[in-house]
């Protein structure tokens, strides 16, 4: 028998599921929701914080309306993924991990999107664009800016 009673740990998968739920609702983990989650799960705040910061899917900073993931998998890397990133950074005027001032776009790199046969690829929200060349970047971004959405419709990968 232990002298100090310990609460049962949350059930299998519950911690990640809770963090995902908050993250997908707000695009990040707001402090208020995060503290509440620690209470609900019966996990010390410090422990939950250590878990949340371990995983790259969670962020404590608000993200833009659209998150752009540039794939840095091996196939994408050797086929010019880095150049896509540079083009994107210079076009949007932000660096990887940052959000544009108007709150429209965030750029993140990801270690592999698993679309290696279509390399290089990038994903905007849930839409994956494959066989990319830098000259398609501006066209794709325009689809996500409402005022400029006069070119190819979203989802048309333009192949």
């Amino acid at each position, binding site marked *: 028998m232990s002298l100090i009673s310990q609460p049962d740990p949350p059930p*299998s998968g519950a911690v990640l599921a809770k963090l995902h739920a908050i993250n997908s609702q707000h695009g990040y983990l707001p402090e208020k929701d995060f503290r509440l989650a620690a209470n609900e799960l019966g996990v010390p705040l410090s422990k939950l914080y250590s878990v949340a910061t371990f995983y790259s899917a969670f962020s404590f900073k608000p993200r833009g309306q659209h998150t752009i993931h540039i794939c840095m998998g*091996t196939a994408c890397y*050797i086929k*010019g993924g880095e*150049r896509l990133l540079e083009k994107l950074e210079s076009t949007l005027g932000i660096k990887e991990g940052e959000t544009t001032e108007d709150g429209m776009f965030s750029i993140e790199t990801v270690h592999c999107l*698993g679309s*290696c046969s279509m390399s290089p690829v990038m994903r905007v929200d849930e839409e994956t664009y494959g*066989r990319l060349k830098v000259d398609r970047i501006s066209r794709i971004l325009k689809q996500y800016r409402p005022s400029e959405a006069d070119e190819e419709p979203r989802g*048309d990968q333009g192949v």
Partner: protein
Amino acid sequence: MKIRTLSEIEKLRDIGLSFLYPQRPRISVGMATCGLAAGAAAVFDALSEEADRLGFDFTPVSTGCIGYCRQEPLVDVRMPDLGRILYAQMTPERARDLMGALSVGELPAEHALASIPEEGSDVSKCSAVSSGLPSIDQLPFYAHQHKIILRNSGLIDPCSIEEYVARGGFDSLGRALLKLSPQDVIDEITQSGLRGRGGAGFPTGKKWNACRHAAPKPRYVICNADEGDPGAYMDRTVLESDPYSIIEGMIIGGYAIGSNKGFVYVRDEYPLAIERIQHGIDRSKEVGLLGDDILGSGFDFSVEIVRGAGAFVCGEETALIASIEGGSGEPRPRPPYPAEKGLWGRPTTINNVKTWASVSAIVAKGAEWYSSIGTKGNAGTVVFSLVGKVANTGLVEVPLGLTLKEMIEGIGNGGLDGKVVKAVQTGGPSGGCLPAGLFHLPIDYESLTQAGSIMGSGGMVVMDEDTCMVDVARYFLNFTMEESCGKCTPCREGTQYMYGILTRIVEGRGTPEDVVLLEEIGNWVKASSLCGLGQTASNPVLSTLRYFRDEYDAHVREKRCPAGVCRALIQLSITPELCNGCGLCKRECPVGAIQGEKKEPHSIDAKLCTRCRTCYDICPQGAVKIVR
């Protein structure tokens, strides 16, 4: 409809057969993530819209991936009286043309890749076939392939349990639960010679046996779908294209080891895979193939999904377990192995997606059938993702023992754009780079390990003369450095040191002593790290040092990058005679380093240029030169 007996499965089979082989045209579009990235959704919409316009009646199906990704978007057209043809590289416009031909009863030859023969069907009336269209198994890409894990991928609607059953699905489950004892199932898997397909190749039957004879219930079953190796996407494909094959394998595994609860841990970057496997679990519950008293056998089993959160190390089994338990994904020392003390300290069987998909094929057809495929000690098939600088990219399932040459030159059709293939990288960040001189090696666990690489989960990234091997080594070290969980010192510190040295070398600041030090630290990290991530982190460095030492020497001694990649060691220039002044490079240069008037030869300002090679990549005239 609830399935309680084997004969009730037959009802599902009949429905499935009527879906797969309907009396009206069936048109399937490959819509796994790779197909979608190539524009499959627009093709699907164009087909439907044009059919509406023409009043053409057909069954549209969204399938998974048939593997030949190079040819995506792929459209599989089955006309009941005419035959079945696979169309490649479709666009919305081509899809409309295709629909126009179909509506007048014709299977056109334009963009046809191959015919798909069906038993009992007569294709002699099909003009495309009679004019010499090969059948799919005659294409060099498919000629060596033997599909077990990918048996249904791209051929069935992944959301249709009926179609899965129609192709023999749940036959294994019926045999396991109703005819075999749990120990019989383990023996069958042991005798089949199946080895874990996640990379390490541990005998699956042995693992199950250890788990069954560990502590009493509760025990757990886990499907490791945290496919983190960059350059590998076969697990995603199976999850998206044939989720029931995984679920069936897990139920059989649960029965064999005596567990009633399974988890599928899927990486966060695979939203479509999560959606499809969730659908498969829900539907299996609905028909009673998951839940209590499955097929009246008295055996209960349920499956839940845990969504990962972007940590590569969670592919390591003990880290994955820590992650399901709600902690950070940090590995712990083994032994004890999960078979003894796994999830919540209970006996746990954890296998890769492809292993589970193999199990569901093996039990119905028997151990003897499976062990007859492949070579001695390396039974069965393995799926590779053949990607990078190779002409034919895609997923390839072959019996173990095929040579690298047969894979890269035969199936892959050699380099991209006629370039010379220099190396192949297997096994992701834990693997190594093998030079073209070793392409005679057979692909099996032992041969690749001996050569300094590993089989790994099956990523095969082809590299050509334009790939710098030192830069590739640095790329992988950056990867493992970032993904190191930080728990043990050799991995945490060692990868940083190695990355630092490699950075010096690619920036032209390296010395010959650096290369020696790099090798020394590499061996040290390999020998003393806690888990597989650290123990194998040096492999990309050590294998490139072993086979491409000349490239390291060129960097440190001559300050030259032979492949023309490392930015500090190259210059870019435009050949005026070749430049027609189209302005594309000027527009796309990320730093505005290119000047020139329209229709006049352009030039690059070396002071502003970051040597990113964007201009080199996009110049339609080939006027940009790399000065090494």
